[in-house]
């Protein structure tokens, strides 16, 4: 086995890589880089990824970071991976690149910003920032709207009208799953209006079962801890990890 995946399951793009490998039967060793323990800042991990972020992979002696680059590399390097994950067709492939690029400054920016400023902040020693959270929520909601009105258009259940999922579905849905950490009523307010998005999340989950739920189980555990800390009225210094 030559592939090592350096990841923290609290990190959305880490989860996308792990699920992709498991679904496609790619042999790999998962090395946990615990963000809550600041392991991403160690000199050893810096050798792997000088940007000090997860996920990163090492395949033989080949090092790579940035989850979209990793997903594409894995889809092209390992045998037996179904074409729908990263189609050979130039037009379909270009559209996948387009939505993955759009993701950086839209869904990811909005979702990560919202979760951090409304919920995770105190776990990282940062104050909650309702103003920043509201700004991020606006971008997040606009992004979900764009997914419904544009990216999910077409005859299939997945992005770009596809009948099967691609790496883009996995990447974006793992991002949306981070909302599992926030209050039920907030999640309902943000996601509730977007029925088509919710169906697409469920379809992606089903297409990658049982791995999707298994990899996401960490979110539920962390959420329970966050809620119990909240009930006791503490700020969660040591519950939660990541700079997400």
């Amino acid at each position, binding site marked *: 086995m030559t592939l090592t995946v350096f990841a923290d399951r609290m990190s959305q793009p880490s989860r996308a890589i792990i699920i992709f490998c498991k679904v496609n039967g790619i042999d790999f060793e998962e090395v946990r880089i615990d963000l809550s323990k600041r392991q991403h800042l160690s000199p050893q991990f810096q050798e792997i990824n*000088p*940007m000090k972020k997860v996920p990163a992979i090492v395949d033989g002696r*080949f090092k*790579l*970071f*940035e989850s*979209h*680059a*990793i997903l*594409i*590399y894995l889809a*092209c*390097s390992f045998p037996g991976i179904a074409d729908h994950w990263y189609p050979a067709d*130039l*037009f379909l*492939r*270009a*559209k996948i*690149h*387009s939505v993955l*690029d*759009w993701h*950086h*400054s839209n869904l990811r920016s909005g979702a990560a910003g919202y979760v951090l400023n409304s919920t995770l902040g105190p776990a990282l020693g940062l104050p909650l920032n309702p103003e920043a959270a509201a700004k991020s929520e606006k971008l997040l909601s606009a992004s979900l709207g*764009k997914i419904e*009105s*544009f990216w999910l258009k077409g005859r299939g259940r997945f992005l770009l009208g596809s009948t099967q999922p691609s790496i883009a579905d996995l990447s974006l849905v793992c991002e949306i799953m981070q909302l599992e950490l926030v209050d039920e009523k907030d999640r309902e307010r943000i996601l509730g209006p977007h029925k088509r998005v919710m169906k697409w999340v469920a379809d992606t989950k089903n297409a990658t079962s049982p791995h999707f739920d298994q990899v996401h189980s960490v979110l539920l555990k962390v959420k329970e801890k966050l809620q119990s800390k909240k009930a006791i009225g503490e700020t969660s210094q040591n519950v939660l990890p990541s700079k997400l």
Partner: protein
Amino acid sequence: MELKVYSDRLSQPSRTILIFCKANGIEFEEVKIDLGKGQHLSAEYAALNPMKQVPAIVHGDFKLFESHAILIYLASAFPGVAHHWYPADIRERAKVHAVLDWHHTNLRRGSIGFIFNNTVCLAFGIPVNPVAAAKGEKLLSASLARIESFWLQEDGPFLLGNAKPTIADLALVCEIMQLEAGDKDDRDRILSPHKRVVKWMEDVKIASAPHFEEVHAIMGPVRDKLKQLKIQAIEKSE
């Protein structure tokens, strides 16, 4: 099949696409979408790109937006494009993807944060935002340092130690060229600590000559115009 490139030369990723096409002899029609006049917000343009941004392309009846996706598509679809722009080797290609992805939230974010909030905003009737500009400058400077310490390597003059440029070199250098729209003193302050970046920019310019300079010819007049707007804005506030 006809290729149309919808662009505004004020937009960094627009310039990247234009230079790439010209440098590779790709025939296309440049359709100007004037950002200053709000043409990107029209219903007609939204039909081409619902995100209402430039650049976008239409090739036959295939529509595409997001400049990195466009660069990859053009490099793959046109047989005359030299291989060094988008290597066929999976690992070399992966590295190109990695730097293009890193670019979104680092160099581009920092560069826009600085130059838009410091100067370019005036072209859209938006006042200067010194706090946002300072934040952008911090990220921009950190990104330039990262390009020097990591992305530019010993083996060759271009990103990832390559002997010849890739689409990533063009995309990132066009971004840094946006500093030409602002004050020369600001540009010198930000760039002068990074001698290797300055050399790399020259190398990319030479590798895509004469198109790089021709497409960037707009920056001089834009800088002068924005300087005027800045003076007017200061006079107004006094």
